[in-house]
């Protein structure tokens, strides 16, 4: 646990010659949520953050030699009176090449918790599956589902260990727990924000424009579905790195439901017909 390290008490525990040789499964570590012992192996003898510094997108980077990691996608989520709406596109791009139009950018952690993905597909899928594992273990140990704030905190802590090492992930953790609907934005720097409306990815500015012009807290459910769908559609229309289909989920008190999965081409024709 974070505080245990600061207080130096974990030094006592490390003295165990028994536990230092055990596999991670056998170690009695109920209470460190994978943040204490990083799951991902890092190259030895090299400090990855220092190594990457000249090549990443920062001020002391070498001119002309930067790895620019763009989050090529559009995802959005907003809270309203009937819960949380989550909508994502489904295009996975590799540079200027479209890998697939049918990528699942929402991970269903449990019936009351969803995570969206934007950024590097590999990073997002890995870390959110790890989060799903920790959520399942939490439920088994504590006999109750993990809260949204705890789940988002776990993810933020896990990823903060690898800060500066080239991860690219912008995700929104949405759920419904004892405290009501929850929405958190977590990204690869370990930033974690609670809020009523977020949009991530290269198309987020288009989505924010549409959402901000139509958002009220007291939207009805059909109005909310329409708003979320339009926001993603307009983003896919203008942003080259978003497209495919619009996947929509609605987080209610009884869990999430998948509202729809519609191809943006068909949406275009539907919205165009409305204008006439």
């Amino acid at each position, binding site marked *: 646990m974070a505080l245990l390290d600061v207080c130096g008490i974990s030094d006592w525990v490390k003295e*165990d010659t028994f536990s230092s040789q055990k596999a991670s499964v056998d170690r009695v570590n109920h209470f460190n949520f994978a943040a204490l012992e990083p799951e991902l192996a890092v190259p030895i003898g090299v400090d990855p953050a220092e190594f990457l510094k000249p090549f990443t997108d920062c001020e002391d980077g070498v001119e002309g030699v930067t790895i620019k990691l763009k989050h090529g996608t559009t995802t959005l989520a907003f809270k309203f009176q009937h819960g949380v709406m989550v909508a994502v596109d489904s295009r996975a791009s590799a540079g200027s090449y479209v890998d697939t139009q049918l990528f699942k950018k929402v991970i269903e952690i449990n019936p009351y918790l969803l995570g969206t993905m934007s950024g590097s597909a590999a990073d997002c899928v890995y870390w959110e599956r790890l989060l799903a594992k920790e959520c399942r273990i939490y439920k088994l140990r504590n006999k109750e589902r993990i809260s949204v704030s705890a789940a988002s905190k*776990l993810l933020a802590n896990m990823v903060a260990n690898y800060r500066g090492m080239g991860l690219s992930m912008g995700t929104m953790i949405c759920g419904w727990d004892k405290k009501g609907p929850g929405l958190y934005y977590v990204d690869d720097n370990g930033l974690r924000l609670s809020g009523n409306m977020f949009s991530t990815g290269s198309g987020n500015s288009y989505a924010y424009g549409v959402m901000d012009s139509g958002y009220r807290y007291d939207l009805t459910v059909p109005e909310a579905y329409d708003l979320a769908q339009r926001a993603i559609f307009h983003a896919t229309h203008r942003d080259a790195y978003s497209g495919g289909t619009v996947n929509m989920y609605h987080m209610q008190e009884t869990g999430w439901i998948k509202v729809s999965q519609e191809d943006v081409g068909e949406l275009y024709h539907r919205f165009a017909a409305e204008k006439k």
Partner: protein
Amino acid sequence: MAARYDRAITVFSPDGHLFQVEYAQEAVKKGSTAVGIRGKDIVVLGVEKKSVAKLQEERTVRKICALDEHVCMAFAGLTADARIVINRARVECQSHRLTVEDPVTVEYITRYIFTNRLKYTHNGRRPFGISALIVGFDYDGTPRLYQTDPSGTYHAWKANAIGRSAKTVREFLEKNYTDEAIASDNDAIKLAIKALLEVVQSGGKNIELAVIRRNQPLKSKEIETLVAEIEKEKEEEAEKKKQKKSS
């Protein structure tokens, strides 16, 4: 043949005992009595205060400790061992608040203490020589009482006692713990005092009491007035019985 199997904690005896753990339980039985009672909206912890020397400051001998605002524990056994457990538990309560953004449930912190102890009994160090009563309220308002012992197991109880004469107190509680007996907060407190008065020699001066009410922090209780009330009630009961006998 206990002598051959009781030197190391890592050795079982032929009939399945871990003697070191059982000896640790004997250490607990020498400690001063503590009683815990779970009421409807209140949890009560009472301990027998050991009489202090004339020149000793009374307040430095504390047997009831708060682990967090809504959880506290009393222990019986080796005080030094208890200090370690309490320190670790306090850090874990705050660590949990930091990582999960919620206060610990009583069951979680009991499980943490028990897991910690297990590391000691399994890794060849000596077990802790304390039993603890952990009481508190969960986030959803349910009152809880747990007892842990040196072997590292824990159980939930409605009312329990540990330490010297724990058996007598537990028998008293089994006879007298009913839903009416704990109907109000004051009744629960009185039950705890009555239970301790069974085994404590010199009455109210040697009892220390602490209560947690839902959504309120730990408070130590002034018991002089309550003890006087209980004495009065006892006298009235005795009077009634005498009258019944004579009539």
